[in-house]
Each structure stands twice: as C-alpha cells, then as structure tokens.
C-alpha cells in the first residue's frame, strides 16, 4: 500500500520535472546545462559539509549545530596558513587539520561527558557556535576573504554543449566525488570504518564486543569536523569567506540531511544533489524564490517520508 502510494507520487513528480526539463532544454539549452552543472557543483560543496554532519549524527547522535562554525573557522585558519606558506594545498590541509583538531577537543573535552544526553549536547553546540562566530569576528573582522588557488585550476574550461565553464568548479565536483568514494571505502573496508558502521547500527553491542567506543567516537568526530574545515577552504575558494557563512552552511547541512536521511552518507549525497540543483534552478528560473524551493522540498520529504529519503525508520 505504502509502496504504491510512494510510486504514485514519484510518477507525478517525475513527470512534472521531466516536462519542465524538456521545456528548459528547448527554451535555452545552454542555460539549462550550465545550471545543471552549477547545481551539481554546489551539491558537491554541500555534500562535503553535510557528510561530516551526518556521519557524526549517525554514530554519536550528536546534532552538531556548531558544524557551520567548524566550516568557517577551518576556512579562516586555512586562509591564514595559505597566506603564510603561499600554498593553497597547504591551506586546504590546514583547514582540515584545524577543524579535525577542534572536533577532537570538543568530543574528548565536552561531549564525552554528556553521552546519551542528546538535548544537552545540542544546546552546548549552539552555545559553542555563538562563541565561535563572535571570536571569529573579533579576530578576522567583518572583511571578506578569498583564497588564491594555483592558476591551473582557476580560469575556464571549454566543455561540449556547455561552452566555457569554471575549471575550479569542475575540480570541486571531482573532489567531492573522490571524497565521497573515499568515505565509502573507508567505512566499508577499514577496521575503524566497520566499527563506525557497527556503532551506527547498535552502539550498545559495539561497546559490548570490547571495542574502545570512546576512541571510535573521537575518530568519527574528528573526521566529521575535519570535512567541515576542508569544505571551508574549498568552498571559500569557490565563493568567499565572511561572517554569516557559518549559519548558511549549517542550514545547508540541516536541509541536506533532513532530505537525504539522517546518519546516511549516501543520503547526504542524494540530498545535496537535490538541494543544490533545486537552488540553482531556482536562482536561474525564479530568482526571488530560489531559496524557498529548497524548503518546499524539505517540507514535502518531511510530510511523506519523515525519516528522509534514504533514512531508516527509527
């Protein structure tokens, strides 16, 4: 019964989208393709941020509302290191490492003592995000920062049908795909990855089987936070860094994981693609309501599949 209903909705939705797509291609083929590509590259950025968020939630049940702050702080630190060393790649590494370290400190120093107390953890992360935003404003001011990536990934690349397209955005897309596959391989084939998956399924059982759960938690938090810092530098290069980016990417992560399904990395990828593409099409075809589109998707998912598209019923 539910399956029939779900397919029914998928058919209706699919038909409408297909009709719109045909119209889009006929109307202005280049615009349609460029927008699709833009949507995918934005999705790549959203995936990088949201995958860390969902990973942490899946295992630790910690809704880390300071995830956006990790993004911003990683980006700022990456920028400083990039200025000092003159290398963009070192900046990316620094962003990752700094955020990972922050994550580690938070998990070991704060959240470990509230394990299982979801609500208090979440509120602590809210407090931390307010503090982080203000400290960042204090140190780095309200200016706008941009990175200086090596010249071979700036500029444009000519693509068939699309024409000139930003090389950096293509690199971003490739990076996200690589990170996504890497994350999948890490979870599927390494010992720690197996522990994490086991923990997502049943935390109690994992600790009962003699695994050092605290270590697994700390590693997961570090990776999740590090991904946010990594995304900070990579995203800051595509766009820019300024105060307020933290809430923006926190919101993106929230919506992406609500749509995709909490705790599922594949869900984060699917959610990111849906939201990224919807946002770009909104911006191109209905500029004033572009942002509202994403929330319509979210409300529909919540109404018909509350656990998210790839989420499991809890």
């Amino acid at each position, binding site marked *: 019964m539910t399956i029939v209903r779900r397919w029914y909705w998928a058919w209706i939705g699919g038909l409408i989208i297909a009709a719109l797509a045909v119209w889009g291609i006929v109307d202005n083929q280049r615009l349609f393709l460029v*927008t699709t590509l833009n949507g995918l590259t*934005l999705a790549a950025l959203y995936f990088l941020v949201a995958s860390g968020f969902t990973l942490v939630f899946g295992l630790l049940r910690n809704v880390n509302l300071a995830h956006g702050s990790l993004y911003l702080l990683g980006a700022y630190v990456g920028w400083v290191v990039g200025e000092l060393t003159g290398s963009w790649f070192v900046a990316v590494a620094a962003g990752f490492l700094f955020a990972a370290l922050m994550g580690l400190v938070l998990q070991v120093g704060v959240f470990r003592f509230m394990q299982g107390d979801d609500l208090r953890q979440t509120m602590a992360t809210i407090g931390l995000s307010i503090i982080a935003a203000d400290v960042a404003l204090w140190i780095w*001011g*309200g200016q706008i920062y*941009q990175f200086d990536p090596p010249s071979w990934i700036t500029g444009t690349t000519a693509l068939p049908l699309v024409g000139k397209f930003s090389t950096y*955005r293509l690199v971003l897309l490739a990076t996200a795909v690589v990170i996504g596959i890497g994350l999948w391989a890490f979870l599927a084939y390494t010992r720690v990855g197996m522990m994490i998956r086991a923990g997502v399924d049943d935390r109690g059982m994992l600790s009962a089987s003699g695994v050092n759960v605290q270590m697994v938690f700390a590693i997961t938090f570090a990776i999740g936070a590090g991904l946010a810092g990594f995304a900070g530098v990579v995203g800051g290069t595509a766009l820019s860094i300024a105060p307020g980016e933290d809430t*923006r990417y926190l919101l993106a992560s929230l919506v992406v994981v609500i749509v995709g399904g909490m705790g599922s990395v594949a869900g984060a990828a699917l959610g990111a693609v849906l939201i990224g593409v919807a946002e770009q099409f909104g*911006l191109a075809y209905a500029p004033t309501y572009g*942002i509202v589109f994403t929330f319509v998707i979210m409300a529909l998912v919540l109404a018909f599949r509350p656990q998210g598209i790839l989420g499991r019923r809890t």
Partner: protein
Amino acid sequence: MTKRTAKLFGALTGAAIATVLAAAAQAQETVKIGLLATLEGPFAAGGQDGMRGAELAVKERGGTVAGKKIELVKASSDAKPDVAVNSTRKLVEQDKVQIMVGPLSGSEGIAVKEYSKSQPGVTFINGGSGAQATTLLNPSPNFFRFNTDGGQWMVGLGDYAYNTKKFKKMALVAEDYAFPYSQVQGFMAEFCKAGGKVTHKAWVPLGGKDYSSVIAKLPQDVDALLVVLGGSDAVNFLSQYEQAGGDKPMVGGSITVDQTVLNFKGKRRESLLGTAAAGPMADSIDTPEWKKFVADYKANFKDGFPSPSLFAFVYYINMKAALDALEAVKGDLSGNQEKYREALKALKLKTPVGEITLDENRQAIGPTFITEVAKGPDGVFFNKVVKTIPKVDQKLNLSKEEFEKMGLGSRDVPNCP
C-alpha cells in the same frame, strides 16, 4: 525568588534615579551625543569605520564646542531595525542624550526616523543610512540627514555610461531590496532618458553567494553590466563572473567597488580596472580639504582602512553638522532645541567634498562623484574621480512633476527594456 526579584527591582530603580540625577547635574557643562552604528553582524566592519568617522569630527574640535564638553555615548545594533530602535531608545531615554547620530543602514534609518517623532525634545541626525524613504515619505520634523541618499549617489552615472562610455544596452544585477532599488533608480532615470536600454534585470536575494546561474542567464548582446551589490555579495559576484569567463565591462553601484570590496583579503581583480561607479565621495578627490580629511583619518586610526570608507565619511559629515550647528547657537539647546534646529536647517556645511545644504524635508543636497577604478603606483586599487556633479537634490535633479510621475524605485521602476 522573592528576595532576588526585590533586589533586582531595587537595583533597577536605584539605577534609574541615579541616571536622572546625573543627567541633571551634567546638563550645564557637557552635551551628550548618542552615536549608533552596527558593531555586530554583517555590517560590523562598516559600523566600526562609521564610529571612526564620527570620532574624527569630535576630535577635530578637541572634544569641546562653544565651551561645552562633548560626551559621546555609543550604542550598537546588528543592522536590524528593531535592535536599532531599542538601542536608540536606550540612548535617548536612559542615557539622556540630547542629540542622536545614527543609524547605519537603510531600514534602520526609517525605523529610527519613526521613533524620532515620539521624542520631540531630541534632535536626530542620520548616520549612514541611505534609504530614500527616510526623508521623502512622512518626514519627521526632528530628523535631519546631511548625507545624500542612495538615489542621489548615482546621479550623473547614467549620463556618463551612455554618453562617455557609449554603453547603449545594459543588463542589471542587483540585490533585491530598497537600497539597490534607489541606486538603480538614480542610474536608470538618466540612462533611460538619454535613450539607453536595460534589457535584463536580475534581482538576486540578499546574501545569495552563488551567482553562477544568474551569470549563466545574463544576455550576451549587451554592452555592459550594471552591478549593484554590496560587501561579500559583490566580491562573490565579481570573482564568479571572472571564473565563468565573463568579459563585459561593468558599471557599479556606490558600495559595489568601494574600499571594502577593492581591498578584500585575497588577490586583486585586474578585471575591475576601469569599472565606473558613483557615490557621495571618492578616494582620490583632488582638493586640499579632502586630502586633509584623509590625512587626519590615517593619523588618528592606525587600525582603519587605507583611506576612509563611505561609512566613515557619512558619519563624519553628519557628526560635523551636529557640532557646527551647536557652535552656531553657542551650545544653546534650550527651548526644545528650537534654535539648534533652525541652525541645522540654515547650515551651509563645509565638508571635505564641498558644500552641503538641506532641503525642506531636512535632506541633504550635495555633490556626487563619478569614478573609475584605477591602479595606484603602489599597486593599491582606488576610485579615480572622472567627473563631479556639484549639486544633486533628492528628486535626482528632475522636476517635481517628473519625479512624482516616476515614483519611488522598485523592481519595475524605472523600466526601459
């Protein structure tokens, strides 16, 4: 809880009484001026520089006017109108300031203007807010604005783009709220009148960040782009336009290619060179008054920008107006500040950019500068003055009928596709 509450109330009443007494005692020898700018949120950098500008005006007079000490009482907002009104109310009703200078942004200005109507005993002078409606619609008798508004800032640019730059067809990218509406109106009123066409209007959400699809949609058959974005939106758009391989020349709004955008941390964008823009000031005005202003700014604020920003400038002239008028009445604020307000209205304000006077709505009539982005010998980008329009009034130098026929700027006004 009882004790706590009682204690709290005791403390509150005590504080209230103390403030009233203190205010009465001080009234003789000091004049309290409230200063409101955004020290939090997205405009924090602009707000800090606005504070610097206002302080500079006080420092120039050595902190005293007509033998009275000037006491600045500062407050902050986060660019939200409700916070701005709360902070203003605190300065006026709690700190008992006699003159109020602020706030910084457009919708804050309208809100504070509305509040000023309930405080006839205090004189309000604008800070940095540039919304047309503040003084054009339902003006308040005790709200003065010595800076020109967002529409005035663009007068002359439309003509310059059409006749000098020879742009006949343009596309527009602007943020979707009142300030860009005013700016676009200031530009298009002239540009359309001269015969130019604006064939495509992209109103983008404030803080949209990712403009790649907006850029993809821009028509290819235009001569130039009119870009009215501010702060990080401007930086994002400009770098993404470059990344997408865009090569159209640009015409900018007053805050599109200002200091904060030209001097953002990161690599400088050569593609911005030659971008025309307009505003109430420019970095490179070639008069001794302006050079002195810049030198004073640099000497006083080591942590400031390389040269004063737009916000430092407008706060400076508004504070200067407040002090000059105070000097003119010898510090006499008696009689509900009646004399003081007359002095403000009659003021011929000497500013670093020239003379500014007020119209019947207590709105500034002042100069506008057309600029182009140029590169200095030290590699620093700056706005080079190419033309000056000495007097611009709030009706954009149009006749009353013409201006009223057009109405206030909006998404669709003016229009010439």
